[in-house]
């Protein structure tokens, strides 16, 4: 690989050009992150009147707390379901949309629409549909003999937030899969077809391997989405309940800080999430950039 080098006439020019980005990063990322790091080793009352340095105690308590471990496990299964379903459904739709020749734009636009809906709004929409008393979906389920009540049943509540989160993310994944599929040269699939490979065979042996960079990219993006951006869905529908069935990590961070006013513990949880994101990003860069080849 050839590296490109650009020579600037003035030494200060490159620094001046990246300065705005650096300033924004410092103000909106580095400063809040360092505040979180600082808060995570303190115990403080809500008003900040009494502060005590407690070292790693906030972290130690989190890992000794079965509720936190439980929240971790809930988040992992939730993320796996959201990433799995939203990518699976999007892939099927992308394959079908890829074959459509007429009115392709109409289908694509309709499939992309849900992405424009904010997570909290998506949550409220599904909440209305599944409200056990007035929801039309709950009414339909009742007709099928299933007594839907996400206020009482943890698995119903989990289903609700998975559906609401997945529904929105399918659009995003669809866009990437479709673009990926269209980038695959037609000659490859046509040649395989001439050799007698059916549609399934062609997909498994030609299209899927060639889509692998998109798949890996989307896995990372979807896991990050499920970990962080689904806060709105949970906040608008289940509030983490019933019991702690849908108390995912990012919701717990918010609740401990803004309802519980326990800044130390909340900051420690943020730091743990920060480490997770750093790890995910590192995997994305290393793995995708190196291993995946067209």
């Amino acid at each position, binding site marked *: 690989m050839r590296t490109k080098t650009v020579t600037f006439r003035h030494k200060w020019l490159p620094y001046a050009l990246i300065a705005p980005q650096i300033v924004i990063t410092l103000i909106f990322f580095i400063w809040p992150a360092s505040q979180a790091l600082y808060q995570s080793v303190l*115990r*403080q*009352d*809500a*008003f*900040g*009147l*009494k502060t*005590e340095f407690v070292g790693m105690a906030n972290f130690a308590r989190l890992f000794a707390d079965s*509720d936190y471990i439980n929240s971790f496990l809930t988040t992992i299964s939730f993320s796996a379901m959201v990433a799995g379903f939203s990518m699976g459904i999007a892939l099927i739709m992308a394959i079908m949309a890829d074959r459509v020749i007429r009115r392709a734009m109409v289908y694509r636009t309709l499939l992309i629409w849900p992405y424009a809906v904010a997570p909290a709004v998506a949550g409220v929409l599904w909440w209305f549909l599944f*409200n*056990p*008393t*007035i929801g039309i979906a709950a009414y339909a389920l009742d007709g099928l003999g299933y007594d839907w*009540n996400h*206020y*009482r*049943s*943890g698995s119903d509540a989990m289903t609700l937030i998975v559906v609401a989160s997945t529904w929105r993310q399918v659009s995003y994944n669809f866009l990437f899969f479709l673009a990926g599929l269209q980038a695959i040269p037609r000659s490859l699939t046509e040649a395989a077809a001439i050799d007698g490979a059916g549609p399934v065979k062609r997909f498994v042996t030609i299209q899927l391997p060639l889509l692998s960079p998109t798949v890996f990219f989307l896995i990372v993006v979807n896991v990050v989405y499920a970990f962080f951006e689904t806060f709105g869905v949970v906040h608008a529908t289940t*509030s*983490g*309940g*019933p*019991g*702690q069935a849908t108390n995912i990590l990012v919701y717990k961070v918010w*609740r*401990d800080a*803004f*309802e*519980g*006013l*326990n800044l130390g513990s909340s900051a420690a949880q943020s730091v743990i999430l920060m480490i997770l994101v750093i790890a995910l990003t590192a995997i994305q860069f290393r793995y995708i950039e190196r291993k995946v080849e067209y």
Partner: protein
Amino acid sequence: MTRKTTFTAMAGALTLIGSAATAQTEIQFWHALGGALGEKVGEIAKDFNAAQDTYTVVPTYKGTYTENMTAAIAAFRAGEQPHIVQVFEVGTATMMAAEGAIKPVQGIMEQADIDWNNDAYLPAVKSYYSTTDGDLLSLPFNSSTPVMWYNRDLLDEAGVEDVPQTWDEMFAAADKLQENGHDCAFSFGWQSWVMIENYLAWHDQPIGTQQNGFAGLDTEFVFDESEDLTNLLQRIADSQADGTFEYGGRRGDSLPLFTTGECAMWMNSSAYYAGISEQADFEFGQAMLPINSDVAEEPQNSIIGGATLWVLEGHDEAEYQGVAEFFNYLSSPEVQADWHQSSGYVPITTAAYELSKEQGFYEENPGTDTAIKQLSLNEPTENSRGLRFGNYVQVRDVINEELEDLWAGNHTAEEALATAVERGNALLRDFEAANN
């Protein structure tokens, strides 16, 4: 600060050019009442501003109770705090532990140049927000208490003539309803407040040690020790099998269960009056909470929910005089009676209650005095005065979670209450450690 400076500068400029304008002192008032209630608050402030020309009260809506409180705390940390902030009852312990951040109302009113007496407030309302010495910490503003809402049409159809007064009558009514083909007899909202805090106060039993937390931070929960509460909750959970009880979610999420006629009775705040009148197309009424006749003949008194106004430190003395005058205006019988009648909250002063009676409000709107009757049944005891636990917003979440495990059948009532107490106590110890 900037706004105030600009304002003073503007006022100064006006005086210079010979205008008659005088520099009015601004009083910032952050509240959490949206919609019609928020408009009413704006009206009250406007009337106060019009009634005198020294102070201008500026009410600002800051979102939910939690958001409003968090906003005020964040503002305090940044040195930009409002004068007055509305805080819900479960935030009381957090506020009062913040010495140096808050100014007790008793002191402000006594130092101010006004005629004021804290005996004017209803005992059940006042005691919740007073120190053990009887000094008022924050000004009661909007208070309600849980009552039992009933669907008269459904009860009539099933031949239930008298609204159940005891839990046994409640289950008997449920049987009658089911004989008549109606499944759900009752549900409730705000379950920690209604089914634990108020149940215990109603039966004069403690929620925690140290006078429910009033006497010290070293308090511990004991609500799992009430055998009758445990048995009742278990009985309710078991009654889900035939559909007698239906759980409809936290806070007021279960309201549709009542307004659509799915459940015949619903226990929740008296402040749902406006909402129910708007949504229900059947005859409804409110009655006192049922009593568990196994343990008590007569109820003690119920405890309040709602919010009070706290005053924050860090402003000029003259401004606190304005706060005191505003509070005095807010507590006047006319303002209180109007607030009570339009909002469904209970009147906070005896005079406002008397005035509403004189005006014939309760005759025109039967049942609207259920809440205040429940609150003033008896002189509050240590068990029924209210509660003052730290981190209580989180504790309520814990109780919600554990009760939901009970309704889902994952735990028995005994296990659910024991776990709630254990987790709640851990939160109390956190609070104690952070505030010592």
